[in-house]
């Protein structure tokens, strides 16, 4: 590992750094496509299979094996390019990117070099109510690598390991790389723009149904480039931070890099062009390989694959069949639901607008959906250090809980327990209700004993109520609810208590 000045130079707080320097950011996003089979062979792509069970002569790079392109992967890449307003190349070839690495069975990656499938697009994102246009340079298709387990080191990291163990199940899974042009003009919030971009991109990919876009499983991965320059100066030297594997980390990676570089620049230091590795645990990056001795990848057209020449009519068909863009869909739904600008802004900022809309789509009233996602679920996400979208609960599941409440089968308190059960991986809402025995107890006979016990236990409160202080019933309701572990309908309990005490309300 090389040492850099970052360890000794104090950082500059983000806002302060951005008053002094202009940021230029760039993002390279890798997306594993959700095809059934791999890019160049028929092996399955399922996540989590036993090591080295989804490999064949082709993806293992055995001598003599040859690749054949997966048509679905080409189609998905073109659809992604179209959704990002790219031009689709009328002709192109795969290339070999040559470098040695044990994760890569052939010691070259079949990728696209100077002839990517899609070029020159853009993606608009909203940050603080403003639209920022992110220019897309290229969208190309390549193959993923295998995965190494580093053994013997203290942290499971490569550094300090005695040896490594390689599993090639992931090798050869189609991987789309989406590369932005350098993004300037992000002013005071480059980190927020970066996060908004990846979020929007993820939503688009999900809408296209081309990938399961699960950052925690690595099917969506980001490399973040950052440089700083003083206003009026040329762009600064950039660093490339790899391993950025959650939305929150995208933001943190840009933020910490702005702070680090500003510290170095302010003290007259020089930024080294390098690859940095982001660590989810610390939220910091460390220096990796210095790019000053650049690797020579010796690209050349892949002779084992023939050129691609996507048919113009086919491209037109794919374009016509694209789903509505998330941004448009969002705008339409916001209007349909009559949400205020402020409200939708709040939901956007919290990263829940799409979730709310999807919950509404699944049948929940807008107000309920909004309350869940901005309330209990936002809290749960926060405690777990996740984005709300990364919570293991779907909008459809939330909508089902809402439905159960409105049907009277759950109380608000029970509903939260059901949601927590879903989050804990206990299954569908109905399964959680069943397994935890959370259905509302509305059988009055069953509640009568609890009501009597409550009155007996708190004679003072009972007297007050009999004397006309009806508001004192709250304490008794509380103890009945507690005794029934929240499963009683509070309004029924209240009515029973008052009846028992001979009080009638008007």
């Amino acid at each position, binding site marked *: 590992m090389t040492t850099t000045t970052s360890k000794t130079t104090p950082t500059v707080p983000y806002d302060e750094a951005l008053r002094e320097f202009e940021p230029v950011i760039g993002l390279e996003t890798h997306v594993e496509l959700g*095809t*059934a*089979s791999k890019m160049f*062979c*028929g*092996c*399955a792509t399922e996540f989590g299979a*036993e*090591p*080295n*069970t*989804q*490999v*064949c*002569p082709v993806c*293992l790079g055995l001598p003599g094996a040859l690749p*054949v*392109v*997966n*048509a*679905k*992967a*080409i189609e998905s890449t073109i659809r992604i390019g179209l959704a990002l307003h790219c031009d689709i190349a009328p*002709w192109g*070839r795969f290339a070999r990117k040559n*470098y*040695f*690495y*044990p*994760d890569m069975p052939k010691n070259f990656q079949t990728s696209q070099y100077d002839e990517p499938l899609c070029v020159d697009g853009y993606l608009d994102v909203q940050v603080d109510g403003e639209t920022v246009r992110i220019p897309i340079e290229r969208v190309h298709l390549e193959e993923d*690598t295998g995965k*190494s*387990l*580093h053994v*013997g080191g203290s942290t499971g990291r*490569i550094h300090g*390991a*005695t*040896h*490594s*163990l*390689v*599993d*090639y199940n992931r090798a050869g899974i189609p991987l789309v790389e989406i590369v932005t042009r350098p993004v300037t003009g992000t002013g005071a919030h480059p980190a927020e723009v970066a996060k908004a971009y990846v979020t929007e991109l993820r939503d688009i990919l999900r809408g296209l149904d081309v990938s399961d876009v699960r950052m925690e499983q690595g099917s969506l991965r980001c490399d973040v480039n950052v440089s700083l320059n003083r206003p009026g100066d040329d762009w600064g030297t950039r660093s490339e931070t*790899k391993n950025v594997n959650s939305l929150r980390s995208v933001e943190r990676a840009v933020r910490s890099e702005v702070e680090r570089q500003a510290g170095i620049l302010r003290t007259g230091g020089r930024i080294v062009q390098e*690859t940095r*590795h982001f660590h989810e645990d610390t939220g910091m990056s460390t220096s*990796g*390989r210095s790019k000053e001795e650049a*690797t*020579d990848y*010796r690209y050349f*057209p892949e*002779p084992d*694959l*023939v*050129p*691609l*020449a*996507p048919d113009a009519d086919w491209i037109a068909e794919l374009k016509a069949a694209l789903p509505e863009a998330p941004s448009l869909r969002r705008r339409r739904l916001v209007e349909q639901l009559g949400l205020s600008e402020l409200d939708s802004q709040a939901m956007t900022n919290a990263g829940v607008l799409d979730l709310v809309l999807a919950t509404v789509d699944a049948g929940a009233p807008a107000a309920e959906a909004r309350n869940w996602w901005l309330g209990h679920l936002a809290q749960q996400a926060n405690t777990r250090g996740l984005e709300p979208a990364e919570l293991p609960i779907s909008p459809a599941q939330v909508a089902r809980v809402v439905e159960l409440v409105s049907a009277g089968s759950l109380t608000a308190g029970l509903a939260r327990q059901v949601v927590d059960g879903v989050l804990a991986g206990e299954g569908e809402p109905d399964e959680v209700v069943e397994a935890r025995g959370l259905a509302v107890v509305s059988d009055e006979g069953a509640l009568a004993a609890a009501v009597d016990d409550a009155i007996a236990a708190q004679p003072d409160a009972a007297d007050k109520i009999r004397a006309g202080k009806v508001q004192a019933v709250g304490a008794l309701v509380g103890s009945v609810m507690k005794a029934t572990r929240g499963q009683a309908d509070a309004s029924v309990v209240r009515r029973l208590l008052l009846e028992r005490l001979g009080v009638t309300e008007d």
Partner: protein
Amino acid sequence: MSQITREEVAHLARLSRLALDDAELDGLAAQLEVILEAVAKIGEVTDAADVTPMTHAVPLENVMRPDVVRASLPREDVLAGAPAAEDDRFRVPRILDEES
């Protein structure tokens, strides 16, 4: 054509993961020099300037397969040829640097 130095050959050997000793490097530098001199004459082909490079000998395009899963190899076959294996994975010596 420029002179091929031992350092250049050493760089090429590093790129291609060949641990060559000094004698081999010197020998290869000399041979490379001779071979490159012999092949340098393709530089004389002046009518090549506007010609499209030929990367394939077949005029095929858009050769693709449907996205259909086919059987993978049995794992014992996968690992049978491995110089070293552990926990159903290929075991390799410690890796120096990350690269991707």
